[in-house]
């Protein structure tokens, strides 16, 4: 219990301390390093102590005092949103915040709340989430220190608000710990609102008009989701007498009663994990410095949404809200992967890829079987690690070369070899066998095939083609070897390097460790959630083959040497129809003049561009969401 309190409260404390450390310097850096270290240590301690005792725990069945504190906290969050809403004249935000917070406060004050239920609960899923938030989040924190120094040197036009940024970052981590450790719906809701607020503050970091616009878009979309959450709390407390998700689950999947809160919570989760039609806020979030994107996309925020869906997945299976989640998630998976093809901005490609992958996780949670939930949890783990690695390396490349456009990453393997290798590992981790994401996608596919959902199988089949396309062409840009280019000065700070190195190793290590993670972390919680015997999702014979593939990737360089052994190869320039100008970067044009060669990737803006597809996608997703919400709630009333 002490560790739990530490995990929730310490980041808040660190946030307050950092908010007051206005002067840049060693003291502030060291405070961040120590805080990150302490968080990781606490998470590891919690993991070890829970796993060694091996069961789930529930705490704080009687905590009226803390309840009041949470209530005060909710009021404070509402006041902060009011403040920003009035200051920037965005009154719809004020309205959205008021209509959800005031009824909740009224409900608690008039004594409708259900007593004697635990506020805090820990099981293996909580542990998995804590590990993701703690480890990945802390590494992002470590990276931020070095990154922001360069960021403000490159962007003198933005005000230097580093203490604010660091403070919000830790606030965010604290809120995420609170969210995943809470059992009580109203506590979860409180932390849920804090994460919405934090993401709003981070996105608006630069205070430019576009940053302000995007941050308010993020805020209203998440507040709309929050309203759904609040509605779910009101209904489940006042009608169903349920205070925790566990209580809702115990009402049973087939039960008519649980459908309304399940639909509302699923709606909240879909907004939070940026599913269509609410993907706009996550795409807009990239105006902020890269660590905030990394945080939103991997360790926090969007993961809160899918976490809630996974928690709900036993009651989603086969019900209308479940069908809604599967359809919206599956459609988002496919649509976002298609939209990613037409993007050349590295961060935008990553944003679409996040949306797409979260769609898959959501769909898995919506299918609501043991198999699919297994896939969802593993996807979440692997995605958090690989995606944070990708974001951080794109940020580092941007700080070194001044561009995050994929076209400008041509020949990065020669210019910035270390960053290029890290990025290649990240891309491999995102879509290729035998790396993690693919193992989980495989399980996802199996669960869709078993559930007999043809639409999902088609989404996955076509979506995997498009996913391959946008990743491979990025990979190709990195790996091109132009002859005349020289190494670029590598200005990556040591703390950034540690973060990148650790995440890259994690991508590889997790692939080797995934059977262990599955057996000790994921399986027990699924057995508990679905009340079945443990099943092995990937056939046991396939795991050695995956490991063999891993070894082969390592062996390839040696094998390549052996295959061409004894042959003296002659270096030459690449073929340019005989008009090279002495290297492979320029050629003689039809006027007899030297011209620089430029190799571009294909983007198909006329076919897959946002201009063409964005609005239809929004339309389809909105229609699906609205119809299925109405059908699932209307079908019960």
């Amino acid at each position, binding site marked *: 219990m002490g560790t739990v309190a530490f995990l929730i409260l310490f980041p808040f404390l660190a946030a307050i301390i950092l908010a007051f450390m206005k002067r840049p310097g060693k003291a502030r850096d060291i405070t961040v390093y120590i805080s990150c270290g302490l968080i990781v240590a606490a998470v590891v301690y919690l993991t070890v102590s829970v796993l060694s005792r091996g069961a789930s725990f529930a705490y704080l069945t009687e905590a009226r005092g803390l309840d009041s504190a949470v209530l005060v906290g909710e009021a404070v969050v509402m006041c902060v949103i009011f403040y920003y809403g009035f200051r920037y004249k965005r009154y719809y935000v004020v309205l959205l915040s008021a209509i959800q917070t005031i009824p909740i406060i009224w409900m608690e004050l008039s004594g409708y709340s259900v007593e004697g239920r635990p506020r805090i609960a820990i099981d293996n899923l909580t542990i998995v989430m804590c590990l993701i938030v703690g480890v990945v989040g802390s590494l992002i924190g470590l990276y931020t220190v070095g990154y922001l120094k360069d960021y403000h040197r490159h962007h003198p036009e933005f005000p230097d608000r580093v203490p604010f940024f660091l403070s919000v970052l830790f606030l965010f981590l604290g809120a995420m710990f609170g969210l995943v450790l809470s059992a009580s719906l109203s506590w979860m809701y409180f932390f849920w609102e804090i994460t919405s607020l934090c993401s709003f503050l981070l996105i608006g970091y630069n205070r430019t008009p576009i940053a302000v616009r995007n941050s308010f878009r993020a805020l209203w979309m998440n507040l709309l989701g929050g309203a759904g959450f609040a509605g779910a709390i009101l209904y489940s407390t006042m009608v169903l007498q349920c205070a925790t998700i566990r209580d809702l689950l115990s009402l049973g999947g087939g039960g008519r009663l649980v459908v309304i809160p399940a639909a509302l919570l699923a709606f909240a989760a879909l907004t939070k994990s940026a599913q269509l039609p609410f993907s706009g806020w996550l795409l807009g979030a990239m105006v902020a410095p890269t660590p905030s994107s990394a945080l939103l996309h991997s360790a926090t925020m969007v993961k809160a949404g899918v976490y809630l869906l996974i928690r709900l997945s036993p009651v989603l299976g086969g019900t209308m809200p479940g069908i809604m989640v599967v359809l919206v998630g599956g459609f988002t998976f496919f649509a976002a992967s298609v939209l990613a093809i037409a993007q050349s901005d590295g961060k935008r490609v990553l944003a679409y890829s996040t949306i797409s992958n979260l769609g898959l996780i959501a769909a898995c949670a919506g299918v609501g079987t043991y198999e699919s939930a297994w896939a969802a949890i593993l996807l979440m783990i692997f995605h958090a690690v690989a995606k944070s690695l990708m974001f951080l390396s794109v940020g580092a490349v941007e700080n070194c070369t001044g561009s995050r456009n994929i076209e400008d990453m041509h020949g990065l*393997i020669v210019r910035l070899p270390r960053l290029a290798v890290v990025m290649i590992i990240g891309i491999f981790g995102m879509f*290729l*066998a*035998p790396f993690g994401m*693919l193992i989980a996608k*495989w399980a996802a*596919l*199996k669960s869709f*095939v078993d559930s*007999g959902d*043809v639409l999902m*199988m*088609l989404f*996955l*089949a*076509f979506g*995997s*083609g*498009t996913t*391959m*396309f946008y990743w*491979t*062409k990025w*990979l*190709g*840009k990195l*790996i*091109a*070897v*132009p*002859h005349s280019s020289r190494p670029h000065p590598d200005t990556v700070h040591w703390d950034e390097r540690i973060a990148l190195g650790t995440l890259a190793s994690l991508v590889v290590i997790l692939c080797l460790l995934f059977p262990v993670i599955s057996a000790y972390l994921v399986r027990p919680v699924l057995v508990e959630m679905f009340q079945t015997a443990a099943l092995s999702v990937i*056939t046991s*014979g*396939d795991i050695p*083959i*995956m490991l063999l*593939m891993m070894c*082969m*990737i390592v062996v*390839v*360089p040696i*094998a*390549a*040497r052996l*295959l*061409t052994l004894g*042959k*003296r*190869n*002659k*270096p*030459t*320039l*690449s*073929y*340019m*129809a005989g008009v090279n100008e002495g290297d*492979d970067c320029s050629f003689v044009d039809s006027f007899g003049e030297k011209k620089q060669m430029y*190799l571009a990737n*294909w983007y198909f803006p006329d076919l897959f561009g946002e201009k063409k597809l964005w609005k239809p996608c929004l339309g389809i997703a909105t229609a699906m969401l609205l119809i299925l919400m109405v059908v699932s709630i209307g079908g019960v009333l």
Partner: protein
Amino acid sequence: MTVWMTVLRVVLFLVLAPFVGGLLAGFDRRITARLQGRQGPPFLQPFYDLAKLFNKQSLIVNRFQTFLIGGYILFTMFTGCLFFAGGDLLLVFFSTTLGETFFLMAAFSANSPFSSMGVQREMLQTMCTEPMLLLAPIGFYRVTGSFMVGDIVGTNMPLIVFLPGMFIGFLFILTIKLRKSPFDLSTSHHAHQEMVKGTTTDLTGNVYALVELAEWYEQVLLMAYIALFVLNRNPWSILAAVVVCLACYFFEILVDNVFPRVKWDKMLRSAWLVTLIFGGVNLLAIIFIRFIH
């Protein structure tokens, strides 16, 4: 006993596949020549070509490329081994993608205009074939209840009876996979490619020989995939499978010689449409029939 049989099958694949692939290539060149009113080279010409390539010195644009080609051939062979060992078709699919990615990276690393254009087209071709290559194992699974090649060939009926749509879809993408006209966009076996040799422009000598060899392995694998639609418990089905494979290959040669090359957007639209209609409807049908029973 069964373990040894598996090992034997894998070894036979590794040893025999290049011969079968080379013979198919020879057969292809001869038939094509006859269709065009030429005499054509001897059947064994591809082997002479390969031997010559292996003995030639390579002109390499960078050492990295050699390594990536090594990855390509290794994973292509590995994929075949998995298949002939009776392994999981989804794993076969993932392994193919990995090998393919190595090939794409090799073409990218050359940093030449022709390789570069070729590789963009090659990626597009992969995007066209991927959905069907993933739907076919799903179809097999829904009918036989297993993704394992070993179980799929042990059924009572040839699977083409349940999966005719899948078969048509697969035949369609086979043209793209074999890089036959009208879909020989990324690189062509004929001399009328507008981008020199596309993806393989900057590969020469013994390194290029490895690519040829890998392609032969790949062809055998694709033919084996076709055979899965026919093979069943009846021993005669092996003969039927061989006949069907040869017929399909002959069909591809005909298509190659009859149709002119199309533009990329036509390939993408047609491949996805065929996959969606034939693959998707077939899948829907078998799940619906299962539902009724």
